[in-house]
């Protein structure tokens, strides 16, 4: 059953444009220029129950806007969406009791009080049965290893510990759909890993539907089979993570170790030399030329070891983002309409 159905969803904002300087500030008192920013431009997406989907995209691509639309914080300019059968922006309590949104950069817990108090408040807001509440809270705090921190004021917790508490607060009411907006932002490697491990475990056991945005490829690679790439408000890819490399990674990296101990002087004619530290060298070669280049290299030089690898995922994604951004840059004059209003 599809938990999330989105059709032609779009959202545009109007932002005030202010030129630099004091004169412009005074001018802005009388006449303001607005620019329409199309954050989301017609998205179609269907997510089945129990899927763990990653939203990837550069900053400002429309990921967070989409999550805000799906959690009912904002109303779309066009299109429709249904989550668990509800229209999110109607903000019905029946819907609000069944999903949760966690934002890595915002906290919902009471700053000066122990997390246990915020949890207690959630118990009542979400009308969780006392026994179920105790059970869920103990289970979650044990899984994340923070039970001993329950009675410590939130302001005295580390960033990683706080994030764990945020996650617990969001999961106490056992939501069927969970939106995670950069949940591991700013965390150290260990805290990131712990949160990843927890999310994977929780999702597998509970079979809930999760949409995640993250800039950490490690999060995505560890958690999500399905990846949706958004750039300039449109979906440009929907598939597996490895599929991204096949489709957008136009290059492969050939690593060579020469028996002679010397690196051939004419290496650059085979491809872009990424590094050369005798006797090893790394070459970047267009995917379709790999067989030809390899054959040529092996015919002319004595090679002790050779590997052919996909480029690092981050690199492929950066390439994909920049190629997706290009058309909009060239259309800048036309796309974001400049509207003048008195």
């Amino acid at each position, binding site marked *: 059953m599809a938990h999330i159905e989105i059709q032609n969803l779009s959202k545009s*904002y109007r932002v005030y444009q202010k030129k630099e300087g004091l004169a412009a500030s005074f001018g802005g008192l009388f006449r303001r220029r607005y620019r329409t920013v199309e954050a989301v431009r017609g998205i179609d997406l269907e997510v089945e129950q129990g899927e763990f989907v990653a939203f990837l995209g550069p900053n400002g691509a429309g990921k*967070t*806007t989409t999550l*805000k639309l799906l*959690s*009912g*914080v*904002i*109303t779309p300019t066009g299109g429709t969406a249904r989550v668990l059968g509800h229209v999110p922006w109607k*903000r019905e*309590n029946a819907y*609000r*009791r069944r999903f*949760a*949104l966690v*934002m890595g*950069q*915002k906290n*919902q817990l*009471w700053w*000066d*009080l122990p997390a246990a*108090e*915020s949890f*207690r*408040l959630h*118990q*009542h*807001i*979400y*009308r969780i049965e006392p026994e179920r509440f105790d059970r869920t809270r103990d289970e979650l705090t044990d899984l994340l290893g923070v039970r001993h921190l329950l009675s410590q*004021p939130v302001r005295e917790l580390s960033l990683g510990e706080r994030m764990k508490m945020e996650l617990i607060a969001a999961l106490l009411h056992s939501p069927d759909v969970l939106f995670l907006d950069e949940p591991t932002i700013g965390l150290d490697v260990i805290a990131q890993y712990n949160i990843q491990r927890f999310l994977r475990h929780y999702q597998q056991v509970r079979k809930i539907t999760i949409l995640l945005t993250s800039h950490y490829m490690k999060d995505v690679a560890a958690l999500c089979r399905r990846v949706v790439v958004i750039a300039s408000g449109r979906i440009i890819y929907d598939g597996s993570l490895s599929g991204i490399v096949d489709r957008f990674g136009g290059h492969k990296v050939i690593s060579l170790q020469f028996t002679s101990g010397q690196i051939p002087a004419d290496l650059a004619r085979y491809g872009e030399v990424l590094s050369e530290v005798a006797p090893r060298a790394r070459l970047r070669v267009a995917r379709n030329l790999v067989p030809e280049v390899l054959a040529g290299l092996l015919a002319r030089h004595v090679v002790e070891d050779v590997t052919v690898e996909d480029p690092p995922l981050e690199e492929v994604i950066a390439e994909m983002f920049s190629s997706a951004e290009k058309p909009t840059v060239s259309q800048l004059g036309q796309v974001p309409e400049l509207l003048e209003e008195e």
Partner: protein
Amino acid sequence: MHALAATWWTVLRISLEERLVYRGDFALSTLMRFLPIVTQIFLWAAVFSATTKTEIAGYRYEEFVAYYLLTMITRAFSSMPGLASGIARDIRDGTVKKYLIQPIDMLGFLLAYRIAHKLVYYVVALGPFALVFFLCRGFFDGWPAPHMMAAYVASLVMAFLLGFFLEATIGMIGFWFLEVSSLLFVYMLFNFFFSGHMFPIDMLPGIWGELVRMLPLQYLAYFPSAVFLGKVTGVELARGLLVQLGWVVFFIVTSRLAFHFGVRRYSGYGG
């Protein structure tokens, strides 16, 4: 119904705990409240010593002092420090999202929070207030009759509700204008002069007096004190209480509408 009451109770309890975290700040701000009134008492003492009149605008010296002391109590109910600016800040920095995502009513939540805030304040302030009133008992002509006392308590409770919903409405202007601090400043200024905080508003002559009596502000300071002092009685008292109730209802509705339309406009500032 039971679930709603339980939620309220939890909000109240947690707010109380939060308020008690900063005990020192709280005790100090409570004591500081008594400072302005001392200057008022000295001012009127100076005014009366410079004139041969025993009454100014219908108030004797003792009545002035009693009035200011009572106004202090009314203000303890009706003033809402940080409410409007807090709502505006939550709108600007995106914290308001919490109330859109979670199945909780923002105004209800803030009201429970504010009641808790006030309760802690009364507990802390009770001692100092009792002491000041005991020392100043000579300025009062005894306790009002029971029915006047009842009217006084009713007007105090309504002063609290009016203060809350009026300031909440002002805070919601933040949905339209992200910065409301100068607007708040103007409101505070008006409130100071026309609520009766600065002087009893029935002192104002002619058209100004008429105008100020049409505003809801007098119910935030002047009216309850005047009821206690027996300045408003009979039909006038009943009408006053009804008008005050009318203003409370008006601002409950206005704040609800402002929230409804404000949220519509809200586009999720602050990431």
